[in-house]
């Protein structure tokens, strides 16, 4: 058994090879379990852990002891109840089993389109957020200010607690150390942002037929906001901006082509022109859109849920980095032997030529969603059998940021009376040292990031 630091070096090297078009020594095994199954592991109480993320450390440590993964299996949670409940969220609520979920909500009305198109950020803050978060009630300005401050502090507190556990586990078990946290990001495609929490699934499906021009204009209006939301603070070839892709498979191709794709494609190209990679979760089955995905910048990381692995590898495998596709439900409903057969099939189809790392088609949401021993058997199998004989060779196409040019005038600029630039600040406060810029603008950005996160 290699010592932890040797193991970590090996893991860092296989991930770096993966992200830099080289064949790695072996297929990286990337399992990130959500907060809930880890909290439940060994009988922990989910509700307590959600309110005090530090409580999961022991359970997370035990998971690390028995589950093989090259990346840290514990990644904290995006959705702690503290900040959502403080803000009286309508869009993230707890179901009867203590699991936070996103019900169908409508926070933007058809008559809001014109204002959204005219002043998108103002519309989000003045109209959408207060409908989505009842504690942001402008009739009670002081309570509103207190609630917002309290929720942001909850958000920071809970993420810090989970973050400390991740740092410890990475060190203790020698997991892939990952890129600098500031070089990653999280956002959505403009259309998905409009669909998910602004209009809702049902209403956006109506809008696509009833007012497609408004939908297209709204995507353009939201572009600078979602682009800025995902924008990392620093650029690193091993990092990525994560975007779950939601609506395309529910749409007709002609609607997708006209309304969903153009602003999304420009966004990914614009990131690429800056040397920034994206990691996309292609939810559902993207088979009919594979040719579109091919057009994305080289080395886009694509996580698939459903689809034919062979076809996906054939069409995209030389250009993009593929993961996912291993059916998580099998881990519950099938025998260990059947699960391992599936793992063999995945390796045979997806590993040749590199640009592949092992992952499940989606995360198990609770501990009962899988048989843990099946998951362990599968990841160990990939570790032992996903070995390359041609490590170090070039893997497919290489990424070059100069291949991507985006006309800056093609997109609207981000501006709002609710976002003060340093220049604005200096005009109002001429007696200010420029040493204040990084601090004040850092917090301005932090508030922006948090407010938009609340709508993701």
């Amino acid at each position, binding site marked *: 058994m290699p010592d932890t630091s040797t193991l970590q070096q090996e893991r860092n090297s296989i991930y770096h090879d993966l992200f830099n078009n080289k064949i790695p020594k072996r297929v990286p095994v990337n399992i990130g379990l959500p907060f809930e199954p880890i909290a439940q592991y060994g009988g922990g109480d989910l509700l307590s852990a959600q309110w005090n993320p530090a409580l999961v450390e022991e359970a997370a440590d035990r998971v690390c002891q028995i589950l093989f993964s090259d990346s840290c299996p514990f990644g904290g949670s995006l959705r702690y109840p503290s900040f959502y409940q403080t803000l009286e969220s309508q869009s993230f*609520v707890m*179901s*009867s*089993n203590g*699991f936070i*979920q996103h*019900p*169908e909500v409508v926070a933007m009305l058809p008559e809001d389109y014109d204002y959204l198109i005219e002043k998108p950020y103002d519309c989000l803050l003045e109209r959408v957020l207060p409908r989505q978060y009842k504690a942001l009630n402008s009739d009670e300005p002081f309570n509103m200010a207190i609630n917002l401050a309290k929720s942001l502090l909850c958000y920071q507190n809970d993420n810090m607690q989970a973050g400390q556990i991740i740092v410890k586990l990475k060190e203790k078990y020698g997991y892939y150390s990952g890129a600098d946290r500031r070089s990653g990001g999280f956002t959505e495609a403009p259309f998905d942002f409009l669909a998910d929490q602004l209009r809702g*699934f*049902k209403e*956006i*499906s*109506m809008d*696509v*037929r*009833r007012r497609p021009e408004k939908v297209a204009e709204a995507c353009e209006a939201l572009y600078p906001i979602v682009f800025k939301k995902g924008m990392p603070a620093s650029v690193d070839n091993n990092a990525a901006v994560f975007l779950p892709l939601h*609506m395309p*498979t*529910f*749409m*007709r191709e002609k*609607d997708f082509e006209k309304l969903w794709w153009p602003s999304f494609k420009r966004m990914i190209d614009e990131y690429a022109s800056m040397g920034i990679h994206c990691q996309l979760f292609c939810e*559902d089955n993207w088979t*009919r859109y594979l040719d579109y995905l091919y057009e994305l910048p080289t080395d886009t990381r694509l996580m698939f849920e459903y689809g034919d692995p062979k076809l996906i590898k054939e069409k995209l495998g030389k250009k993009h980095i593929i993961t996912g596709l291993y*059916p*998580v*439900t*099998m881990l*519950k*409903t*099938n025998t260990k032997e059947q699960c391992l057969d599936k793992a063999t099939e995945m390796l045979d189809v997806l590993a040749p030529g590199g640009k592949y790392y092992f992952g499940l088609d*989606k995360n*198990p*949401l*609770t501990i*009962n*969603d899988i048989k843990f021993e099946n998951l362990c058997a599968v990841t160990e199998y990939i570790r032992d059998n996903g070995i390359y004989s041609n490590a170090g060779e070039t893997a497919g196409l290489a990424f070059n940021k100069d291949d991507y040019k985006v006309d800056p005038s093609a997109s609207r600029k981000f501006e709002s009376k609710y976002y003060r630039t340093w220049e604005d600040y200096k005009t109002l406060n001429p007696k200010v040292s420029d040493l204040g810029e990084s601090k004040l603008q850092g917090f301005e950005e932090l508030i922006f990031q948090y407010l938009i996160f609340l709508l993701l």
Partner: protein
Amino acid sequence: MIDLKEVTQAVGDLDENKLMEILNDFISGNPTEEEAIKVVNACQNGMAVVGELFEKEEYFIGDLIFSGELLMEAINILKPLIGSSSSDKVGSIVLGTVHGDIHDIGKNIFKSMSEAAGFEVYDLGIDQPVSAFVEKIKEVNPNIIGLSGVLTLALESMKETIDEIKGAGLRENVKIIIGGNPVTKDACIYVGADAFTTNAAEGVKICQGWVK
């Protein structure tokens, strides 16, 4: 005189403007109840066309949602003419999203399509405890139970629900279909359902097969 084929086609084409124009013309001519029922049937036939186009992958979920809305609009226009008489139901379904899961888009699509196909649907709603299904089955004695769920955790809840239905001695009298993103053949066997589908139109066909 209204052209019923045109009504069916407007629904099938999801042509909202045309359908509303035809229906508004129709009601302004003071039609009889019998005529109005024929128009409702023509709309329902249009929904079947939508289902077929969905299976052919010409329409997608977004279109099914729109079709449900369109049908509801049409029925709302025609309802005052039909009064209290209702057509015979082909069967009954107790439907709900199982406990732990709060998603309902798929369930609602299935509901509107099965209602359009002539089923009486008792929709319990989302995140429904096992007892809610058992109570409703005792109350309305349905032909079919539809269990819906989007999350992987829904499978366990489906199993618990079906186990409890068995425990209450109600399993023999009903067919059970599960629907939603995580369901597969293996999952269907695991939870003890009679059928599974990830496709609302197919689900309706399965149910129609059961009540023939």
